């Protein structure tokens, strides 16, 4: 087992310039800074339209020190395939290829290309930062927007459908590594990316990424809210490594423990205002059933 990274031995190499175009309190700016440290300098990035396109700066100024190919919305994983193909043709296979997309670019418009690349077994890391709506275009619902959430396209009664479980969909392709992470636990993310780098074939990491502007909270609470999502048991940190599923980090510590009620998470954000008491109680029941199964399976 690899040793856990701490703030003391985290790489000091900064690959994302400060003063970029991310909003105050942006969860993506946390995970992107830490994620690029983990990926390292010998990496080519592939990025579809998303908040990350904006974060990286407007031509001819860039906020990132890695080479990056901006691509069309539906093409991310196919473009990563093309970079890999060229690197292979040129004998430059030691260079890492990482795709970094938002939840819309992953779960909705990008899922076909991603599924194709996973099925073909392309040797790349696909990272989805999930801020649970189309934030860059002004908070429209996406496939990963949770049930009940108010967005600009579910304006009054909230989204009626459930959140799409993208990590499970990707895991169903039988790839060797799927993991979830959270912007509130950047070192856990760092270690997962470092582990993914050691494996062959497609690797998928899904990061829960709080968004102050889209979720309706004070920018200083980004990490607190990210932690609450995990501590309430709503959002789980786990790895599926060679088909073995296991809880990790802060979620693993919750096994057999009392979890924070989901209501405390919902109360921190404006986007959950349409949730009725009945809906909240239903969600709490679902979370309790899920965790009862975790406790039985993974508890001592």
């Amino acid at each position, binding site marked *: 087992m690899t040793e856990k990274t701490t703030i003391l031995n985290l790489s000091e190499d900064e690959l994302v310039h400060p003063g970029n175009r991310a909003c105050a309190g942006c969860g993506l700016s946390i995970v992107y800074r830490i994620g690029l440290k983990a990926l390292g*300098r*010998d*990496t*080519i990035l*592939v990025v579809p339209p998303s908040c990350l*396109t*904006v974060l*990286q*700066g*407007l*031509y*001819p*100024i*860039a906020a*990132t*020190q*890695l*080479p*990056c*190919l*901006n*691509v*069309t919305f*539906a*093409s991310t994983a*196919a*473009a*990563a*395939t*093309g*970079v890999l*193909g*060229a*690197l*292979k*043709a*040129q004998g430059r296979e030691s*260079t890492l290829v990482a795709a970094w997309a938002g939840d819309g670019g992953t779960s909705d418009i990008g899922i*076909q*290309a991603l*599924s*194709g690349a996973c*099925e*073909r077994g392309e040797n790349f890391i696909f990272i989805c930062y999930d801020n649970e709506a189309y934030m860059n275009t002004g908070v429209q619902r996406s496939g990963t927007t949770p049930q009940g959430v108010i967005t600009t396209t579910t304006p009054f009664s909230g989204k009626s459908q459930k959140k799409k479980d993208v990590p499970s969909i990707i895991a169903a392709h039988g790839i060797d590594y799927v993991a979830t992470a959270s912007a509130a636990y950047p070192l856990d993310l760092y270690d997962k990316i470092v582990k993914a780098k050691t494996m062959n074939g497609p690797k998928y990491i899904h990061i829960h990424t709080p968004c102050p502007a889209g979720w309706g909270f004070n920018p200083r609470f980004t990490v607190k809210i990210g932690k609450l999502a995990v501590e309430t048991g709503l959002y789980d940190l786990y790895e599926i490594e060679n088909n073995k599923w296991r809880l990790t980090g802060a979620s693993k510590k919750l096994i057999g423990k009392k979890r924070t009620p989901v209501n405390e998470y919902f109360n921190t954000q404006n986007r959950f205002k349409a949730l009725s008491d009945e809906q909240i109680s239903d969600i709490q029941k679902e979370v309790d059933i899920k965790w009862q199964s975790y406790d039985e399976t993974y508890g001592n």
Partner: protein
Amino acid sequence: MHIIESGNVAAANGVKLANVKVIAAYPITPQTPLTEKLSEFVDAGEMDAQYIPVESEHSALSVCIAASSTGSRAFTATSANGLLYMNEQLHWAAGARLPIVMCVVNRGIGSPWTVWNDHQDAISQRDTGWIQLYCCDHQQIIDTVIQAFYLAETVSVPVMVCYDGYILSHTYMPFEIPKQADVDKFLPSFKPEYALNPNQPANLNTVTLPDVRPDVRGDMAPGYMEIRHNLHADMRDAIDVVGDIDKKFNQIFGRGENPYIETYRCDAAEFVAVCLGSLSYHLRDVVDILREEGIPVGVAGLRLYRPFPDQAIRDMLADLKGVIVFEKALSYGNQGALFADIKAALYSSKNRPKVHNYILGLGGREIKTAHLVDALRNSCVDTDKVGDTPVWIGLKM
């Protein structure tokens, strides 16, 4: 070496000789045998390339865009709805100035479904910023594929090599496969100005503002409009480059000499039939019949459609009595796209010929020589009677 094979196999041999390094494709009729042949070459070890069997045409071009951005020569091929599914990527590849080559095996577009030949697929993509070359036979297919890489890499603009589905893609005819050593002498290796590389990081295809903007050193970088202007200017310059490449090709292989327009019996012609693709060879028979009748008519097949060789068009057509444009495509609600382009090219000439437009062969409707003879004779004899609206040939209603 001469062989007798299909047009798709001719194209595949051109791709092989051009030392393509990344191939991505998705099956669609009638392109499929071309990519099957390429996968055969790669699997048999006859070709040192990455063959990527993607899950869609959109992804096929995405792979080529990324591979080209990473510095490798890339190829794909498609037809009809596959080309349309690539539409946003066509614009992207041209905007990013990537020298990708694609064979478009021309087929009609659904709905309703048709798998047969016409030109609506490629014509509908004429404004994507790609160079379009049209072929009339298998020799032209293999030669044009090889030349297309040279052209694309010289002007940094992607190239479509278009040839008729079934009529060329699936028929067999003899053609010469050039020697690899000669192709290597003709086609320089791909040396991109920039390729994605961690030692030289760059952020490609970034959001670009309407106006120019200084970079970190204070040098002014172009805005969106300057970048687009450069694409247009380089496309216009590509017209001369097509001519130069044809000369160089001719010196080594002894073929060519018709970089823009291939003519037949246009000497002392008062009328010329104009079209794209293999139809111009069909029209040669028609012209022979009409010349027997004493009608001074010839045929001109356009090889280069975008950029539009308007000077060559004027030089050839401006002093004629009549120009008759036969098209397997239509700008719905208006007229044939080639018809409109030819009229625009001739507008500035002193003696404007009458220009007629025939629409034919849509969705593979059989094109009968007798119909062509009647239509062309009619345009030559009753030049003033034929109006400006397109006339449909072979329509049964």
